[in-house]
Each structure stands twice: as C-alpha cells, then as structure tokens.
C-alpha cells in the first residue's frame, strides 16, 4: 500500500518537507504518492540528486499524481 501525501491544500514548502520526511523512511520496495496542483521541479531536482525515479500523471481536475520510488 503506497504512502500518499496530499499537498494540494498546503503552502510551499510544506509538501516538499513532508515528501523529504517520508522518503527518509521509505522502504526499498514501496512507493510514495504525492498529489499536487503543480509540476514540482524543486522536488524533482532533489529526487534526481538522490537516486529516486518517478512518474507523473495529470488528472482532469489538474491534480499532478507523482509516484516516487528508489531507483
């Protein structure tokens, strides 16, 4: 069961803070799912530097669903 962080009602950098805290304890075979209303380049910069991979899908209501796991 993936962990889900809904950052759509949160001001930056709170979604980023929650993501970093979650990634710190994320098991190797689990996914972190983030829901945001933007394309979070600062998060992607961090993921890229620290060996994570992700997929991004945009829903009809503008929600960006980002699925992150260890590379």
């Amino acid at each position: 069961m993936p962990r889900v962080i809904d950052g759509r009602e949160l001001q930056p950098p709170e979604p980023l803070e929650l993501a970093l805290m979650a990634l710190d304890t994320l098991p190797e075979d689990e996914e972190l799912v983030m829901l945001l209303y933007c394309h979070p380049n600062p998060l992607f910069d961090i993921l890229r530097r620290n060996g994570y991979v992700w997929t991004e899908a945009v829903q009809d209501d503008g929600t960006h669903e980002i699925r992150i796991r260890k590379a």
Partner: protein
Amino acid sequence: MHPDLSFEQAPPISVPYRFFLTAPWFGVAAGLLLVWFGEVAVMSRWTSATLALTHLLAVGFMLQAMTGAVLQFVPVAAGGNVSRPTLVANVVHPGLVLAALLLVAGFLSSNAILFRFAGTLFLLVVGLFVAVVGTALLRTPARGATIMSLRLALVGLAVTVLLGATLVEAIAVRKPWPLVEFANVHAAWGLGGWALLLLAGVSYYVVPMFQLTPAYPVRFARLLAPTLLVVLLVWSLQVGGSSPPWQRFVWLAGLTLAAVFAVTTLWLQHRRRRRVSDPTMLFFRGAMLCLLGVLISAVVMTIFPSLADEPRSAYWLGVLALPGVFVSAINGMLYKIVPFLNWLHLQRAMGLGMLPPNMKEMIPERAVTVQMRLHFIALGLLLAAAIWPELVRVAGGVLAVSCGLLGWNLIGAVRFFRAFRDRIRAGEPNLAP
C-alpha cells in the same frame, strides 16, 4: 494549470537579497522626508519635496525590490538564463542606489549637475540590466502570459528611464519642452508599463502558489499586457505637447485594465482553497483594493472636475498607487519569497536526510503582523493627509517606522540563514535551531 518552477538556474542567494535588503531604507527615507517637509509635500505634485518623495518610493523602494525579484524570477520561473548574475548585481545594485540618491538630491537642491549625473547613471545601469535580462527573456524557450508580461515590463522600464533621463536633462538645461506631458507619459510607463506588468507577471505564479488560489484565467492573463501596451502608446501621443480632452478616456481605459487585474486577484483570493489569512494575503488584498481605489477616484474626478483641479488630488492618487498598491504588494511578496529562498538554499546545502527549519521560524509571524498593521496605519494616515494636511508629519513618521521594521525583519531572516548555513558547513551533527 499552475506554472512550473525550476531552481537549477537560480542565482546565488546574495543576488536578489542585496536589492531586497536595500529597498526598505528608501521607504524610511521617504517617511523622514515627509516628517521634515510636512504639508508642502501634499499641496502639489510639482514641489521639490513631492518629486523627491515620489522617486524615493518609485526608484528607491520599488525599483530596488523589483530588480532583485526579476534577477531571481527570470531564471527560476521563466527559464531565462541571465548571464553572470552576480556581476550584473555587483554593477546594477550600487548603480541604482547612487542614481536614486543623486536624483532625489537633484530634486531637493535643483542642482543641474546632480540631475545630469543621475540621468546618465540611470541610462547606463538600467540599460545594462535591460540588455542582460532582455536577452535572457528573448532566448528562453518558455512561452505564456508571464513571459509576455515580463518582456513588456522590461520595455516599460526602458521607456520610463529614457523619458526620465530626457526630463532631467530638460530640467537641468531649462529647455522649453512640454514637461507636464512628458511627466504624465513617464509616470504612466513607470507605473503601468513597468511596475504593474511586472506585478501581474509575477502574480500569475506566486498568487496561486503561495495563496493557494486557482490559476489566473488564461485569456485574461494573455490579453492584459498587450492591451495595456496599446493604451500606453496612445497615451504617449501627448509628448508632442498637446493633451486633447479624449486623453482622459485613455487614462481611464488604462486604469480600468489595472482594476480588472485587481478584481481578478481579489476574486481568486476569495476562491482560495485554504481559508487561513496570512499577512502576505492581507498585504495583497490591500494592494488590490488600492488599485481599485485608483480607478474609482479617477472616475469621481472625471464626474466632478473641480476635484480633479484640486492640487491635492494628485497626492491622493499617488498615495494609493505607490505606498498603497506597490509597497503593499512588495511587502507581501518579500515575506514569502525570502523565507522560501532561505529554505530552498539551506535544503540544497543539507542533503536528503535532514530538513531546514520551518519557514515561520525565519521571520516570526508576530513581527510580520506588527509591521503589516503599521504599514496600513501609515497608508490610512497618508490618505487622510489629503483632507487634513496637518496629519502628514505623523503619517511620514509611521511610514518610516513601518519600512524600518520591514528592513529589520528581512535582516533577521538573512542572519538566520547565515547562522544556519554556517552550522551546516561546520558539520554540526544536531541542527535543531
């Protein structure tokens, strides 16, 4: 859809911060000038005190803050690669400070040499800034309303400075040029072409991002800048020395466009997802209400021409526009941008396993709230001084204290950043603040 940000091309933190830290002290100077000169600053837009006050706010406070914001914003939000940002800031920042001081000194002393030095320095320094940032904006592959607003805002800045340099030259050598019409066009390009378009372009990003509102309507965002440009071009026809009566409707058209931006922003704030009101949101709301107030005042003055003929009406409009709209909006933006930049730069230095302190620890909310209240008290007193000029010295004093507190709060944020960064560099194992 919300726009994208990328911090890979972000300049060093010192690039925008030197401008942000300088701006408030010009606001302090403006307040102190009002305390010194008193009622004469209210009576007419053409007194040396009023011209000095206007430019302390427009060139001192606003241009400093906006220049710093552009150097941060263009690489991060517009994908524009600003060449050698530290070198550019090393030249532009002291250049603008000196030019602003020379210009204000010129107004206060009517010294032609000061005017000519100021005009030349503005042309050189702003010319460099426009060239470097303009190149970045032309080369960026990014498209959209923000890019267009930023490009046209830069055109607005260039035109404003060219007209301003022409004006100071005309004053310095006492040329018989149509100074009133030139000044009207210069003010319109400065406040509408540069400041408003920059505020709008940046707002398309930061209002949805930090205030959790829906995005600005796409068609409105795309049409505002080019439509305002057309209005400014028609308004500029009066530089020939003739301002026919229909130009009043051009003025109202420009103010109506500005008011549409204000109403749109207020409507988006009303529809925000999170109902908590923080000082940034309140500063912005105040700014937009003042922008609406400018149009309402202009309409009233059109219906009652005797009000328009009253010399203090120009002071009233100037207070709404400068401290009301732009100083308010800049206050609000700085209280979000500075802690956010602190947080991002510290996080990059720390790596994945640790978190920087909460943004609210960088500038205590209580300090922000106190300064915000002082700002709006100052604004109220400044407006009241249009009716009771004897209030203007108190208004100036409160404005000076408010801007000084803003400066102090920002210095606190920078000190917080430096102290934490030094602890990171020292490799401290426990980084709890």
